[in-house]
């Protein structure tokens, strides 16, 4: 039992880390802009496609393989820098303040557009490029072999959790975001450019999603449909954690990760259902999610 426990835990944490990247951006964007972005999962898969393409480019040119790590980060930054401002200044700003039905329909339209654009640009074949994972090697513990890359994923997720907490509680941008969330008119009345705060928060959300997608490619590759799968998982996490809570998103990602990986170990045929079974149980007990308030920070 114990020999199976540690791999299960590690796989769960690594799976939770990737889910967290997708969900935390969704939750950040919702808490600051009050927009539920159904197309968020597509930003995850676009990050993945771009990272895989750049990594393959690095490999095909015979460049130093360690450049593939740069490729992962660079692709997330590129997606955030280009699509963040582009989408925020057009569709997202337009749906801001409109009813949830309009937000969901409009961003679902955006999701369809982004999915087709990915098929046009990257084709329908799957990409698999695991150079970063191979470069990191393995660690053997108690006779079980672990991928060091998985440990890095967990580390990066922890860094994102603490980084975001620091950003929100201890930086000027975090205070400005809290002010805009609490009272947008008042924030404007003291000269805060709320459009700029929205743009930064949305782009940060895009960056986190694209980073998740980029980091996932060495482990699982990427194929059409990833955007939709990710979106549904991210919504399950948001529902479990309570929308608008970064800590809630972390906890919920862990629950979903554990549920999925346990299902894979114990009863693989329930792999796809496990996250939603977990969601059902949590929502029966706590209908607003585990940490269900609409606040992004408490002093």
């Amino acid at each position, binding site marked *: 039992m114990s020999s199976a426990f540690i791999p299960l835990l590690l796989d769960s944490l690594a799976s939770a880390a990737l889910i967290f990247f997708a969900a935390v951006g969704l939750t950040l964007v919702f808490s600051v802009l009050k927009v539920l972005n159904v197309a968020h999962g597509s930003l995850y898969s676009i990050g993945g496609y771009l990272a895989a393409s750049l990594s393959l480019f690095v490999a095909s040119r015979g460049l130093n393989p360690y450049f593939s790590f740069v490729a992962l980060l660079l692709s997330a930054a590129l997606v955030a820098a280009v699509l963040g401002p582009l989408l925020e200044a057009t569709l997202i700003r337009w749906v801001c303040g409109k009813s949830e039905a309009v937000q969901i329909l409009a961003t679902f339209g955006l999701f369809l557009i982004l999915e087709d654009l990915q098929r046009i640009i990257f084709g329908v074949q799957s990409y698999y490029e695991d150079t970063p994972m191979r470069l990191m090697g393995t660690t053997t513990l108690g006779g079980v072999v672990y991928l060091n890359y998985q440990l890095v994923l967990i580390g990066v997720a922890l860094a994102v959790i603490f980084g975001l907490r620091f950003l929100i509680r201890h930086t000027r941008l975090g205070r400005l975001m809290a002010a805009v969330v*609490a009272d947008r008119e008042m924030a404007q009345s*003291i000269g805060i450019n709320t459009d700029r705060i929205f743009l930064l928060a949305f782009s940060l959300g895009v960056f986190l999603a694209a980073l998740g997608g980029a980091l996932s490619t060495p482990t699982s590759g990427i194929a059409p449909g990833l955007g939709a799968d990710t979106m549904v998982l991210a919504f399950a996490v948001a529902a479990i954690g309570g929308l608008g809570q970064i800590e809630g998103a972390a906890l919920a990602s862990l629950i979903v990760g554990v549920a999925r990986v346990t299902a894979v170990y114990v009863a693989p045929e329930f792999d796809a259902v496990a996250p939603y079974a977990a969601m059902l149980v949590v929502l029966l007990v706590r209908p607003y999610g585990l940490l269900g308030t609409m606040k992004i920070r408490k002093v």
Partner: protein
Amino acid sequence: MLSVRDLHSYYGKSHIVQGVDLDIGAGEIVSLLGRNGAGKTTTLKSLVGLVSGSEGRVELDGRRIDGNRTCAIARQGVVLVPEHRGIFAELTVEENLAIAERRGSGRTRSAVYDLFPRLAERRCNRGDAISGGEQQMLAIGRAVLCSPKVLLLDEPTEGLAPVIVDELIRIVRGLAQEGIAVLVVEQNIRFCEAVASRHYILSQGKIVFEGTSDEFGRASDARETYLALGSPGKSAGDAQTIRQGINQ
């Protein structure tokens, strides 16, 4: 300094502000009086671009600011302190001030703490863990950090103890002496008479009286009709009491 011509504001089909003209000079304190629902708050909000359905000409030092975004108007120097004070409850006193502070503006947090020593004592308290008077001081202090040329105060004395109102009178006069123009919307006539040198009365979205304090004191008809006050002598006497209280 601030000149408003033919301001109209609408909420849906309701025509709330109907052609208001206002002028406020540098260092001048002007009051805008009127009953509930007369359009006073809507007038202030329209000046800073918070009412989407509003039209008219608003000039600051001869430059048009109407049509600008609220944050741009605030940065140009017209800053609103709303009736509800708008303190960010989840931020501390210090953080509430910090987000309004701008480098190179000449206005600093420490200057605000000098102006309001009580805020310095409360600097680590959350915005919702301070008294109503402290919240009002925080709201004014935060507005001062925006380097205002014109300060719009909406019901600043509402819910405050008389001793705090006295302090507010001192502070508002001090800000005007620095050259800041102040437009104050109030139900508290005594406060207005104590600080303002000119008064406007708004009724059903229109300016129905405009005059100096002396003219306002003599205009008992206008006061009776539009503000439904007791005898002018009584409130003038109250204002006198406040002035004496400050001098002591």
